[in-house]
């Protein structure tokens, strides 16, 4: 069994902006994400971090290069297969948390599992256990609007984990949090690598490097 979970090989992504201008959001990127490790990619705004995350998770297609997962290039996969891949193997954490406002904290955590063939009881048990692990047991019935930013992001983390993913992609997970909250979110994320979950965090915040097992710096779509 290889130690590498997902690997980007010679990955490029071009966008056409306006009429003619071509933007190289990613330029021949090579990146390996090992199992059960936290990898950090830093870079200033517009350096291509979000693009990297989109392409690695199969949300967007690369212009060139491969994304290798279990010896297959997911860039070749059909839409339906990619959904299934994300459903079973991927969790997302977003800068703005993106919790669903009409669902309680508990329901937000359960949400990714609703379409899946998993018994409601099992879903509830998993969600409750995660809610305890992120320390929000007392907010079980609260709606996102009733939670602070830090609390919402904890729910976001629990939601990303409920499907027992092999990898979590986090885009600026601490972007809207103060330093204390950011530190505790990073520690919480790091703690989940002990359960064989890999984590890719992209951020403009260099300070987060100390939580990561490996870090790369992105500038104008290239690693430096």
């Amino acid at each position: 069994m290889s130690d590498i979970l997902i690997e980007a090989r010679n990955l490029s992504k071009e966008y056409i902006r306006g009429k003619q201008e071509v933007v190289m959001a990613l330029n021949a990127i090579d990146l390996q994400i090992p199992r059960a490790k936290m990898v950090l990619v830093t870079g200033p705004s517009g350096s291509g971090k979000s693009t990297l995350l989109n392409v690695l998770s199969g949300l967007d297609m690369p212009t060139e290069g491969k994304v290798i997962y279990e010896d297959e290039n997911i860039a070749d996969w059909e839409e339906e297969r990619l959904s299934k891949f994300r459903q079973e193997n991927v969790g997302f954490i977003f800068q703005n948390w993106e919790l669903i406002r009409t669902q309680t904290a508990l329901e937000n955590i359960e949400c990714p599992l609703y379409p899946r063939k998993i018994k409601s009881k099992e879903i509830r048990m998993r969600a409750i256990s995660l809610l305890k692990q992120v320390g929000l047991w007392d907010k079980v019935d609260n709606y996102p609007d009733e939670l602070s930013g830090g609390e919402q992001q904890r729910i976001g983390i629990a939601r990303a984990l409920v499907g027992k993913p092999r990898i979590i992609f986090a885009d600026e997970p601490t972007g809207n949090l103060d330093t204390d909250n950011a530190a505790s979110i990073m520690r919480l994320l790091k703690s989940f690598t002990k359960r064989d979950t890999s984590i890719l965090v992209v951020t403009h915040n260099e300070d987060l490097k100390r939580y990561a097992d490996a870090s790369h710096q992105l500038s104008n779509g290239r690693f430096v």
Partner: protein
Amino acid sequence: MGLYKLIVKSMVFSTRSRRRFFTFVLVFSILSGATIVMLSFFDSFSREGMLDHRGVVVKVRDPFSLTDRVSLEDAQTDLDITDGERLPGSEAVIFYKYVNFGPDLRIFSVNPQYQWGFSEIKPDNLIAGHYPSSDREVLVSEEVLLALSDTQDGLSIYTKPVVGTTLKLGVSEDATFDLRISGIFRKPDPSTVKSDDLEWIILTEDAFSIVVDGDHLDYRTFEIYIYSISVIASGDIFSGAAYDNVDALASQLNSLDSTDYNEPIYTRKENKDDSRNMTFLSLLFGIFGTFMVSTLYSYLITRFRRREVAVLKAMGYGKWDVRIVVLAEILVVSISGFLIGLLAIQLYVWNPASRDSAYFYLIAFSPTAFWSFIAVVLSCVPGFFIITFRTLSVRPIEIFKDR
């Protein structure tokens, strides 16, 4: 299993965006209420307003002056048509019997299935209570005076009838037939309908037989005994088939007896066309409105919930999973709106204060409600397509765009 769970959860969640939910449920309930009301105008026989579109009454002049007890069944055989027969183009042939009892009173029989089969007792004229539905109930006209007589002093006290009180019919103390007054009835205006000065009481056919054939009333003293036949034309008003049938039946029945006693009671087609067209326009408005609102609403929710859809797609929700989540909202909202509209109309119909007659109509389980429901569901079809295509176009990478 995953599908069932997703549908149920999505339906629950779609009620949680409260302001949007309640606003649109209200809009839908008004529109589907309008559709139900309009459709019910087309619901032929169940609406009193339709009565004079559809009835043909044929009175047979005094065919039986009974001198002895002849059963009602014997009497009927002298006619060409029999009770319950179906003439071509008719829904039913109904026989009514009445007897003039003394100089003041006329007793009618009414078939509980066709309570207002002849024009004189159409529901417009009911002012309280309801038609008799059992052989222990009686409908009386307003003018009926219940006499409390004290023969010794030669005094009589008269009282107006009240729903719920007991009416005793009989010629002597020990041969009375007790009937509960189920409704009060306004005699038709003699200037519009041929009427008389008698007091009317209206019984079910069973009660009529008991009273007239039994020992309760000695009809031999009065012995005027006349049949009336109502023929209900079939066909629906909207397509015009009912008009043709009324005309056809009227000419068919003309041969029965002299023209004096053959009165097709229906308003001329030309006069009805106007109201029919107005009703049809309103119905179109109701259906078109529901259609427009559900389409607009579908468009709006795909906008309101766009970011949510992007998140769900990123999480690995498939095309259909996402559609179900959004479609659940429009279905829940339109169906709740429909049910509330229906309930409101039913309560309105039931509320005695708002009723202009005692005519009772259970709309909730009527074909009207069914067809309105179908109309509401069909009106969601364009919305369904809008949702199907617009959720498809949402790309999950939108969430990663800096806002």
